[in-house]
């Protein structure tokens, strides 16, 4: 009896190790490769020896313009996040708290829009933005991103608002607050964790966007980081600069990894809020 229990525990630990290794190994390989010298980039040892920051220096050499790309990414995903949160907070509050006609239909429609393939809205928007001279602008990336970010935000926030007890608001309204004041003074501060979680999830989604950013730009100075990395040029035409690509990849991913480590509980709660209900 105890032997089988012991066996089970071992098996479980083995499973845990397998899951962790499965998830982390490729990422670890990116990290290790980024710390190798260009001369031993094809090395397959598990640790970089010697550790070299050559690739990171190459990434930030002025000719790559990677600093600018990071800034562009930050501007595009930051603006997208703020705009989406602003609109979604009001809408989600109405969805969670107010009774009105066609509520179900409207919420279904909003969420259904996130199911659209991005490419099907891309073609007309590309044509439109070409006509009005928006190619190579930030708004040409921010506006289409709203199509998938806004439904995500509305859904997440609606779930959060619904979890908050009705009584808080009613008490505030009995005490003489209007619904608007109750919303501003009671709901928003209490919903701050939910809004924050939604912000992280939206930001990551916007930060990871590639197709729109690729199609709406052709000037390197406006490209976001993922697009810029994909266009990194090597020394010769046929030489892919894997080392600097990995280094840049690490740099783009590290902020997200830090967010994941700090807020993993909240992110998991946010991601599963809709699906598990």
């Amino acid at each position, binding site marked *: 009896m105890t032997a089988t229990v012991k066996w089970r525990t071992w098996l479980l630990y083995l499973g845990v190790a397998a899951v962790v290794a499965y998830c982390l190994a490729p990422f670890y390989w990116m990290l290790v490769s980024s710390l190798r010298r260009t001369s031993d980039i094809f090395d397959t040892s598990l640790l970089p020896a010697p550790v070299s920051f050559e690739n990171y220096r190459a990434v930030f050499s002025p000719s790559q313009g990677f600093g600018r790309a990071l800034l562009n990414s930050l501007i595009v995903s930051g603006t997208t996040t703020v705009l989406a949160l602003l609109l979604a907070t009001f809408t989600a509050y109405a969805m969670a708290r107010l009774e009105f006609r066609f*509520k179900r239909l409207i919420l279904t429609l909003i969420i259904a829009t996130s199911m659209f393939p991005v490419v099907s809205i891309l073609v007309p928007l590309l044509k439109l933005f070409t006509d009005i001279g928006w190619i190579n602008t930030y708004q040409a990336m921010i506006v289409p991103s709203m199509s998938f970010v806004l439904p995500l935000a509305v859904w997440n926030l609606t779930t959060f608002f619904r979890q908050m007890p009705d009584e808080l608001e009613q008490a505030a309204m009995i005490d003489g607050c209007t619904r608007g004041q109750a919303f501003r003074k009671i709901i928003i501060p209490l919903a701050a964790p939910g809004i924050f979680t939604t912000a992280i999830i939206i930001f990551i989604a916007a930060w990871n966007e590639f197709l729109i950013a690729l199609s709406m730009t052709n000037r390197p100075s406006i490209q976001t980081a993922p697009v810029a990395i994909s266009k990194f040029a090597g020394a010769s035409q046929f030489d892919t600069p894997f080392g600097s690509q990995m280094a840049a990849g690490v740099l783009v991913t590290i902020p997200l990894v830090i967010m994941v480590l700090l807020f993993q509980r909240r992110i998991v709660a946010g991601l599963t809020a809709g699906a598990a209900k």
Partner: protein
Amino acid sequence: MATRTPPETAADRPPGPASGRAGRPPAPEKARRGRKSATAGTGRMAALLVSPTLLVLTVVVLYPTIMALRESLYGTKGLDPKTGFISDTEPFVGLQNYTDIFGEAGARFWNAFWNTTFFTVVTVGLETVIGVAMALIMHKAFSGRALIRASILIPWAVPTAISGLLWRWIFNSDGIANALIGHQVLWTTEGFHAKVAVIIAEVWKTAPFIGLLVLAGLQVIPREVYEAARMDGASPVRQFWHITLPLVKPALLVAVLFRCLDALRMFDLPYLLVGAQKSSVETLSMLAQNEASNVRFGPAAAYAVVLFVYVLLIVLGFVRLLGADVVGDAGGTGRKKRRWASKGNRVEVPA
């Protein structure tokens, strides 16, 4: 908050229709006037709060979708076959972009269509199996749960574009994948192995995500159910098939639906891992994007519309399969009741 600013409200909606729109039929008795105006106010407020989102979505989703339908009926600029002149405007060609799919230009389309379908079926299938296994392990493991949760979120957080480049590096001819299998495979060249490379990379990124969603489903199953099953002498395997799987099915189906929709519009990964215009991995999104970037907007729009209809059909299929709505709509308890009820073929439950 905005209800207290009459000018805006008045400009937005004239008072007459507003009260009609507010939800309830107008109450005939004077005694109910107070309540009526309250609901009218709520309706106005709701309209005010919801309309900015609807407006934005109209501009970025509805309008482009309609324009894509229109665009798909136009051809490309170039030589006009009738007059022999070069035209600046796109000629109207009716359904020709669609009929071309079944004609001469069809080979590339059907290849992309089958690639998309193949990737969706295989990756979602593998992800589901691996994701469920991961969820079971996470559910059982008490120590080290935080570590697993953090590590499981890493593939999700790595941008797909970056993971495409990362796997391109792993699958390089002198890369670690070939070193591990001790065999030279040119993964990123045309051929079936390129498909395998894309599938491995996609499954790595998204299986943990399914694992997370399934784990959330597992955690709401009451412990007593398992205890009862154990008392009745059910083996762990039987417990899995007869308790865990049926109870976790709603959460799993929603996760699978969302993964399917994501896989159907796959673009970044094959584009960066293998490359554009590689027929062994070209998906419908890649095909449409490629046509659009070559200023062939008409065919691009037609391909996008086909993809859109394909996605719509899959969603409708899932909605029928789930018996109720998949979008997790209004009203907590009422909805749940409805969903369970519809399983037992009793759709009518008074709200």
